[in-house]
């Protein structure tokens, strides 16, 4: 079944057409990639999907439900979360606090004036260990390196037990020695927790390795899509990356 279904979405910023007639489908439990040169509209597409801004036209279905008029928190609560290209963490809070507040606090709002439950704290420790930040757990998130912040942001998203994760360039700015570990974890999350992944990635090697299906954006329109091998050999894709 298609978990996410984007149908001919248009989005312009003033005169700049960032997305035009963009469609894609993400089947449940799969890893799908999005590639494209800088400024081709990849982040804009993510922003449209998660409700960051209204779209100009088109439809976005999540589990069969039209979501293009919902707000960010509403969509997040349906189980779709995104991470940012530039890290977004709570800088003046410790890693543990960043994780705690990423638990579903509204689920038991009657306990909202209590400290976090033991279950939440256990999950925090487990996920921080999973991304390799357990030893840094009492540091302020703002004091972590950029790559560590990306790992933290990824772990924070997992606290919400999402069914689909939208990752915006998860390896950009990450120390090359950490990238392989990160890819392993993405795959592990997909296989073990069954979380669908939609990944924007600039690093060709990474995405060819990770994704089962790849979409390529160029100048705001969908240029091509297919299996990694097909995309790699597609002349239009090669031109988009190498050409003007």
């Amino acid at each position, binding site marked *: 079944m298609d978990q996410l279904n984007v149908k001919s979405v248009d989005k312009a910023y003033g005169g700049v057409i960032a997305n035009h007639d963009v469609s894609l489908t993400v089947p449940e439990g799969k890893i799908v990639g999005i590639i494209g040169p800088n400024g081709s509209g990849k982040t804009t597409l993510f922003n449209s999907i998660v409700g960051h801004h209204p779209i100009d036209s088109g439809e976005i279905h999540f589990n069969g439900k039209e979501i293009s008029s919902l707000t960010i928190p509403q969509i997040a609560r349906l189980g779709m979360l995104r991470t940012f290209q530039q890290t977004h963490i709570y800088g003046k809070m410790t890693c543990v606090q960043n994780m705690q507040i990423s638990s579903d606090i*509204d689920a038991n709002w009657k306990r909202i004036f209590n400290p976090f439950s033991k279950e939440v704290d256990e999950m925090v420790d487990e996920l921080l260990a999973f991304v390799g930040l357990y030893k840094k757990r009492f540091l302020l998130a703002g004091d972590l390196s950029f790559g560590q912040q990306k790992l933290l942001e990824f772990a924070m998203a997992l606290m919400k037990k999402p069914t689909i994760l939208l990752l915006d360039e998860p390896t950009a700015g990450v120390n090359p020695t950490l990238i392989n570990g990160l890819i392993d974890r993405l795959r592990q999350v997909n296989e073990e927790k069954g979380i669908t992944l939609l990944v924007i990635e600039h690093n060709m090697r990474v995405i060819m390795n990770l994704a089962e299906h790849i979409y390529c954006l160029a100048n705001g329109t969908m240029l091509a899509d297919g299996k990694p091998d097909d995309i790699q050999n597609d002349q239009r894709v090669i031109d988009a990356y190498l050409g003007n």
Partner: protein
Amino acid sequence: MITNNKQNMLIWIGLAISAVVPLLLPNYITVLTYIWVMIILALTWDMLGGQTGYTSFGNILFFGVGMYVSAVVQRDMFSSGLDRFERVSEIVVNLNASEYFVSLAVGTLAGAIVAVILAVILGSGILGMRGHYFAICTLGLGHAAAEIASGIDYIGAGSGMVTPIYPGELALSKEAFYYYAFMLFAIVTFFLFRKIYQSQFGLALNAIRDNENKAESMGIHTTQYKIAGWSIAAFFLAIAGAGVGNVIGFIDPVEIAFSGPTFGVWMIVMAILGGKGTIWGPVLGAVILYSAKETFWTYLLGWDKVALGLLIVIIVVYFPKGVLGYFKERKQLSNSILSQKGEG
């Protein structure tokens, strides 16, 4: 980090002293009462201003509303209604002890409830806006409220109101009663707020402060948390307002109830001076600023406002993170120097 237990011990020692001080220094009892008032003002301002980073210039609204609503309930609850030919601002109600305290309690609670309702309505309108836009929207709140109050005859219009006379037959003087009442209320506020800041709710407020976009994208209904935080502040601030109206005995819409240049500014300066976004900062700031103000007033007649203004400038320039923030940074610096030496 100092644990809650250690903190609590210090608090109890401080409170034991506070409880006997008015007996030792009876002439200063009103000044000391105001220190408790200031602590409440600074603590409530910090709920939004420090914990979420949303600067409000309009919290004085809740203070004045609590003051007026309570005064009206106290005036009308046990009296047979207004004499139409009397000037409202001159009505002085005489109540016996039980009437006095019952109407005070009911009035205070009513004031707090009205303030919360206002906070929810106003907050729904303007707390959806980000940072500075919200701050700008709150700029006129106090002034607008003063204008409106000045036009309502039922509450004495521009001439204000008089709160009921404290019953004379009691052993406990009015000054002592309000001193201990405010002391108790400040303590309750402090412990409740500390509990809130250590809870899930408190962390949600901090998440909004650090990165509101992220909080939203993680499914936190940020506007609702901001409104809830503002409402809690309004509740406690209105209670303080109700009490202050009775301490002064007279309510003026511009000079007292909705007095932006005094209470309205002080609550902000105190929180920032002590260290906003912390539980102890506002307490410290309130004690320092109010003591300074009283000292200036006593020794620098006429120049007290200048001295206070100078103090505020010094704070903003040299202690932008407040006294607590300043010492925290010094400590971190010396810690990192020490650890470097240790490694060497």
